[in-house]
């Protein structure tokens, strides 16, 4: 049944207006890349791509925002508008619903963010040193978008206002708290994503260096994905449909 729910969710996500807004958000790094190509002379393309474009803009902003909007809509929107009863009232174990929802959210998020990395990377790095950075960040955002998707799907089952809570996590916790308090970076999906990029890339540390080592970063991404998915399954198993829904 997972494929049926997966396809149904993709159709629901792709027809939402906010998904279109995300595509517009994903175009911004490409415009930035073009601007850099046309004007910048002092910064090397590899350093700009790694720190300014990929880590600074895409991993900091495009990835978490896309995952937040898509992840909270994948199941949260169905809970909000009441269509979730068509899934819950079927002879399906509820874990299949969670897995299908996380997979669909992951696919849409990854499609948007990977395209964003590849196109902007092509614009900045074609013919330049550090071409492997693009591949490294493709792998990293693929992994990071899975973790974010599981996190935000779980959040949408637990909270009616998951979008606001998610925004607080992305912009307050990850963007501010975890950046300035060193120990807290271990609780940031953004930091894990950058750690994975650091592990895959072949550029020297002077160009790009993540604050978290690749090994722990990959392990933490896996742990958070598994734990948040398990939490989402547990919440959905105990989930009650209110008569107001």
């Amino acid at each position, binding site marked *: *049944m997972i494929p*049926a729910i997966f396809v149904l969710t993709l*159709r629901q996500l792709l027809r939402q207006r906010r998904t279109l807004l995300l595509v517009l958000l994903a175009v911004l790094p490409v415009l930035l890349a073009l601007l850099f190509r046309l004007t910048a002379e002092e910064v090397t393309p590899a350093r700009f791509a790694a720190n300014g474009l990929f880590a600074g803009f895409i991993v900091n902003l495009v990835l978490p925002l896309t995952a937040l909007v898509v992840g909270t809509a994948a199941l949260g929107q169905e809970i909000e*508008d009441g*269509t979730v009863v068509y*899934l819950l*009232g079927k002879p399906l174990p509820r874990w299949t619903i969670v897995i299908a929802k996380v997979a669909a959210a992951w696919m849409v998020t990854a499609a948007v963010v990977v395209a964003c990395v590849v196109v902007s990377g092509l614009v900045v790095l074609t013919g330049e040193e550090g071409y492997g950075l693009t591949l490294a960040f493709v792998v990293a955002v693929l992994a990071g978008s899975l973790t974010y998707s599981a996190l935000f799907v779980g959040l949408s089952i637990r909270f009616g206002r998951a979008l606001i809570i998610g925004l607080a996590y992305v912009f307050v916790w990850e963007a501010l708290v975890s950046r300035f308090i060193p120990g807290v970076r271990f609780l940031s999906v953004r930091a894990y994503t950058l750690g994975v990029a650091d592990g895959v890339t072949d550029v020297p540390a002077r160009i790009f260096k993540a604050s978290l080592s690749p090994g722990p970063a990959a392990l933490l991404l896996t742990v958070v994905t598994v734990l948040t998915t398990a939490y989402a399954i547990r919440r959905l198993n105990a989930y009650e449909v209110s*008569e107001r829904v």
Partner: protein
Amino acid sequence: MTATSQPAIEVAGVSRWYGNVVAVNDVTFSVQPGVTGLLGPNGAGKSTLLHMMAGFLRPSSGEVRILGESTWGRPDLYRRVGIVLEREAVYGGLTGYEFVRVNARLHGLDNPHEAAMRAIELVDLGPAKDRRTGTYSKGMKQRIKIAAALVHDPAVLLLDEPFNGADPRQRLHLMDLLRQMAREGRAVMFSSHILEEMERLGDGVLVIVAGRLAASGDFRAIRRLMTDRPHEFLVESSDNRVLAQALLGDTAVSGASLEGDRLTVRTDDFTRFTEQLPRIAQAARVSVTGLSPLDESLESVFEYLVSR
């Protein structure tokens, strides 16, 4: 469809509360195949009860069983149960056909296309099946939801206010359909706050008021109780004082009060009162210009049933 020895639906000592608010209070009944109506005013607890029957809400105490199995946390039960909730949400981006077919696929049916087509024909939506459900009227949405609930040929059908939004023709068609389901041996339970729907459809009726089961049994017997209860009328006539005196001489009238120009009459025998009023007025040479019930709201009928 179900063994007659075992009730299709059993509700045993079920209560449900939200914090300090009791939505359903110690309700017990069992239902056999046939059409059963769940009647009660808005906010009486009908939907909460239906949600518990559907396995969507966990009872705070007691147990709900369908076909002998507890409904909470048993998704396998949905192979034999179809559910239509009141809220009209459907997947607006899908056509009617796609919506019913995806429900068939989620049930794991061998031939989702065939099952979807059969269910769509049952609710008479064939000509609109390729339109997006987002463009459907409220009544059409209700019918496509019923098609989705019937797609796997369930033995038990639970419907929350199924006729909301349907026009009179659609309403009659849906009623025929539900009767046909019942004739085929299914248990069909539907909730409504409209007496006429119960009268036309419900073989048996369960009356829920303020979370309690106020009455249950044959609808006609309950309807009689409702009709024979004390009624109060506001009477307007050419001479209220003379008419009040004349009415008090009849056994159908148990009381009359005259406050200024306002004449209120109380009767314990509704049928006799409505027959006798014109005769008494004529004999007293008084013209009756108005007669309006003071307590005909469904809530007052239900309050009477509860107080008995």
